[in-house]
């Protein structure tokens, strides 16, 4: 029972970090209709900025720097995509993000090398205990920070002027533009926000029990794809639900791998994709995604 509780807590912690990434995917998709394949490298850029600056300015400011760097990178990517490709289709823009990802990842990998870099986070390897259930402090911090940030983003959506513009733009671009909403600015803000969220996620992905930030950290963002798709690409609530499902299934597959050994080793890495395929078989637009309608 203790093990089950620990596994579930770990799954929730993992899911809440995925949620930061998946929410970024959804915000970008709602704003521009693009699936951002460069998100992993932007996440890596944010994390790398934190590792490079924390000794000079301290951890909290370093996270801010990382968020700014990642946000700026995402904003630049948007500017590139929007300027260069006026009127291009979404799949073409998606492939463009793959190209940018190749460039950014190669550049970052050359900087990071084969090492594990520390983000200088204050939690270290401390463990908190509730009864017999042990969980690392970094994971608890991950849950708390994610809940706060995601709550903040939802509040922005609901009550801020930008949130209103964003919802209007997502509902009907043309009508929104005619009402005086500057689509370009709304989209730019969405991309920057998504980048900043990814940077925060990078900090928690690199925290204990992971050995630190390394060149594969960006690939973890790929596991947030199934999370976003599972929930439905255009639903923020769906992204949260999807992330929790993916986090839990990943943690359960890792925690009970002896019992699941019949399915082969390393099942935890593919669990997100298996779950996603199963869900898509039943609901092709994800759990909360809106159905595509075509009117003739």
């Amino acid at each position, binding site marked *: 029972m203790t093990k089950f509780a620990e596994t579930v807590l770990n799954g929730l912690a993992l899911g809440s970090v995925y949620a930061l990434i998946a929410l970024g995917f959804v915000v970008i998709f709602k704003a521009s209709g693009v699936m951002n394949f460069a998100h992993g490298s932007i996440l890596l850029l944010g994390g790398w900025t934190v590792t490079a600056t924390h000794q000079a300015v301290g951890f909290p400011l370093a996270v801010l720097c990382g968020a700014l760097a990642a946000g700026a990178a995402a904003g630049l990517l948007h500017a590139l995509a929007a300027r260069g490709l006026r009127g291009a289709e979404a*799949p*073409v823009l998606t492939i463009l993000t*793959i190209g940018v990802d190749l460039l950014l990842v190669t550049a970052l990998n050359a900087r990071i090398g084969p090492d594990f870099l520390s983000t200088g986070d204050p939690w270290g390897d401390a463990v908190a205990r509730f009864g017999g259930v042990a969980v690392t402090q970094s994971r608890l911090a991950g849950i708390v920070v994610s809940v706060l940030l995601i709550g903040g983003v939802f509040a922005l959506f609901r009550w801020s002027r930008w949130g209103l513009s964003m919802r209007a733009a997502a509902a009907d671009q043309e009508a929104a533009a005619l009402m005086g909403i500057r689509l370009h600015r709304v989209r730019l803000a969405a991309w920057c926000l998504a980048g900043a969220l990814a940077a925060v996620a990078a900090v928690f992905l690199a925290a204990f029990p992971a050995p630190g930030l390394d060149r594969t950290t960006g690939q973890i963002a790929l596991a947030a794809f199934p999370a976003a798709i599972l929930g439905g690409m255009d639903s923020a609530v769906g992204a949260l639900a999807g992330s929790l499902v993916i986090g839990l299934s990943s943690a359960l597959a890792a925690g009970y791998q002896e019992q699941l050994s019949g399915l*082969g080793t390393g099942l935890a*890495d593919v669990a997100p994709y298996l779950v996603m395929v199963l869900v898509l*078989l039943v609901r*092709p637009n*994800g759990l909360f995604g809106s159905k595509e309608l075509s009117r*003739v």
Partner: protein
Amino acid sequence: MSEISKRAVAGVGVLVLLALPFYATGFWLQSGLFAMAAVIGAIGLSLLTGTTGQLSLGHAFFLAVGAYGYVWLSGPAGAADGLTGLGLPPLLAFGLAVALTGLAGGLLSPIAGRLRGMYLGVATLALVFIGQHVMLNAHTVTGGYNGRSVPPMDLFGFALADASPQGLLVLGVPFGGLERLWYFGLALVALALLTARNLLRGRPGRALGAVRDSEVAAAVMGVPVARYRSAAFVVSCLYAGAGGALLALVFRRVVPETFGLVLSIDYLAMIVIGGLGSVGGAAAAAVLVTLLPQVLTGYADDLPLLARAGSGAAGPTPGEAARYLYGAAIVLVLTLAPQGLAGLTRRRPRKTLQEHTP
């Protein structure tokens, strides 16, 4: 270019390709064979993503099915290391491996048919990861992490390998495995190009283009959309199967690492650089994308700004430089020349009267 000069250029190109094994070194022959496998695979992806508009990130998975399918079907049965295989004649195994990949595509096409756009892209991404998991764990078929060696191709007793007949000389040039495999590869590429061209210029090609532009409009025009979408998926998989099996023959050993997400992205880069929807462009870009890292690695010492891998010197390593170059190529092609390589050869449409009449 006029039709005649086009044909002349193509004829000279074919002659050069036919003569290459008499002049080129093994390194170039091997690189060329990798490029041929890539050309076949890229044509397949071009039909699916370029012509029909279905984004697929799972091409590496289907290449793997083709490669492992060939190895398993032709591999020796009951080998000592616990590997299984059917031990079929290699040519038959090659054909069956292609069919097997098509079958895999056919089984998955009902799922693919339900998904649109990005959902399909990520669902096919899942295939790559699930495929990796299977390749690493199905030891008896795939050999696990270390992979398994590939039986050489054999055409009715004439082996496309260094042995049997050993020391073959053609016009005084030793004809080993690579030289013999070269012509097999050329034949496959020619077949692939011809089939794709005929497919696209006929009724199916028009229908697929209509499906890409608007499914509703295509359906109204009487195109069975679902059937064509899944047919495109199957055809694309057949190409991937042939490309994968050829790749296995050139590598002589298949390992799961080859067929990762990077390979899928390479293929996507090929069809984008070539120009979405163009078979010739995809083939040209496939050669470019495959040869670039090979050439940069082979000539790292002679090129400025490059550092040898692992030498610790400043500057990007050849592999990195290649990735920079084609990452930049994707971005530049998409922002500056959306038609890709294919667009460069096409004549700019002359302004005619028709454009001015409404």
